């Protein structure tokens, strides 16, 4: 009997790579919150000519799964162009770590979010981002792909937990196919609100469960 973590996860947890705050980063992203129990900050140094990530580091307030994923994400992103780094997925990180317990998916997906957020920060600072697109169902679906369903370790869109999305003048309502007393309902709700509230034209987010 061993820990539910792979030896790669434990190794990255014990000796995380690319750790620490970076002085004067070209791009930085902070995802999660202390209230949720997991938080990741990602810092980038980018070559302005090649748009290659030349240096990357992270800070983590989180569990083993969070720290290990942040560590592997920095390894995967280093040396890649911003475009390629954007394509790194949680699944890729999880595979590189020899698998992650599904129940810990929500803790580790933050590292991917942190990387994307740092890239976006760089792009915004360098005039690479065009006008914000208005929030429609497609945008919401895209964001919800980053909310994990801990029952299966995949996102709530792919596992078909999202029954309905309604958008009305900046008020977003999401209906989830779980009873409200389900053990993961509160965590999923918290995650959804966190992902959607950040959108520039969203006023409020309501998450309803089937009962």
């Amino acid at each position, binding site marked *: 009997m061993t820990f539910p973590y792979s030896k790669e996860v434990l190794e990255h947890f014990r000796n995380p790579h690319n750790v620490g705050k970076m002085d004067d980063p070209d791009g930085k992203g902070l995802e999660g919150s*202390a*209230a949720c*129990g*997991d938080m990741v900050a990602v810092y980038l140094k980018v070559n302005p000519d090649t748009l290659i990530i030349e240096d990357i580091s992270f800070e*983590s307030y989180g569990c*083993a799964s969070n720290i290990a994923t942040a560590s592997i994400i920095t390894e995967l992103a280093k040396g890649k162009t911003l475009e390629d780094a954007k394509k790194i997925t949680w699944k890729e990180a999880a595979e590189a770590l020899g698998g992650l317990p599904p129940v810990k998916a929500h803790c580790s997906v933050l590292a991917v979010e942190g990387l994307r957020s740092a890239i976006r920060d760089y792009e915004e600072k360098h005039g690479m981002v065009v006008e914000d697109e208005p929030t429609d169902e497609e945008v919401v679906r895209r964001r919800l792909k980053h909310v994990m369903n801990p029952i299966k370790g995949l996102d709530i869109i792919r596992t078909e937990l999202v029954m309905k999305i309604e958008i009305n003048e900046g008020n977003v309502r999401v209906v989830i196919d779980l009873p409200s*007393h389900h053990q993961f309902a509160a*965590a999923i709700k918290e995650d959804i609100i966190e992902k959607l509230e950040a959108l520039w034209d969203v006023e409020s987010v309501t998450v309803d469960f089937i009962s």
Partner: protein
Amino acid sequence: MFDKTVYLDNAASTRLDERVLEAMKPYFFDTYAVATSEFGYSMGIESKEGLERSRKVIASALGGDANEIVFTSGSTESSNMAIKGVLSALKGKKDDHLIVSRLEDFDVLNTAKMLEKQGYKVDFIDVDSEGVLDLEMLKAAITPQTALVSIQYANQEIGTVQDIKAIADICKEKEVLLHTDATHSFTRLPLDVSQIPVDLVTVSAHTIHGPRGVGALYIREGTPINKWMDGGFQEFDLRAGIENIPGAVGFATAVELVTPEENEQLKAMRDRIIERVQSEISHVTLNGSATSRLPQNANLTFHYVEGESITLHLDMMGFAVSTGSACFSRSLEASHVILGIGGDHERAHGSLRFSFGRFNTMEDADAIIDALKEVVENLRAISPLSADD
């Protein structure tokens, strides 16, 4: 692999004392008849005697009579039996009203929540920032329709001890039955039912170096209660099923082995960890009462770091402790106890519970403090949070 582990999670479970095992052995290999065969053959009589001797020991430790003790499979069953049994017996006579505290262990809390879903009216009484029950709120909550109050004697996580005498007096005055979950205080703190009018008491062997899977419920004589599990007629026709006689004997032996000196030793280790951690590690909060707490429990929050990470690092260094972090549990919920005393999620996530037992030493307490200093410092070094934020 676990030879060198310093185990400081005795609130979860304790190592069996070998003397307990020795006392249990004959009831596995020599006297293994069921107690109900006492009228058929002599081995049954011996089994019955072992069971009844054990019952007397548990009763005596609580100040009650042997016929007021029902053996169960542990705290969860005892509390379920107390709450569901009393509510069932009073159905139609009272208005299905139950009162519990917000800090109860899951055996009471989830039983109450389930009953609420089934239509019972349940009030969850608040506690103050140290986890002490608001007695005025309790008084105000009790109505003529209240069937039962269930308040733990001491909290499983932050160690706060309730003024059970005051709670019992309130219930007595209002003529309401009182159940207390004394799982973590049994033999560690006095609870004499001949002096304190508590009607039902949950106790368990697994917290005092007895076997897992055996507990008991004290039921004051005359308390209305129905059996909630159907089957045979064992245990005064209140708890069906073949009696766990080796377990009962082990439980009784475990009770007899606890001494006042041992409890003083636990208290000394508890105080050492609280004092040294608070003076040697910055940004630490003590959870629970500083004065009214279990002798074997210390619970501290290490700010800006996450509990599961601390426990995992400590494990790699040979220490086993528990945390109130959501990441530690499969439920993804942070400790309801830390949140219940007004703590925020961050305080819950960074909390560690150190619970001592007979086989711990002062060296264990000192060693884990040294390890903690290193682990907390290392994790804070990679945390995006700090006191400056």
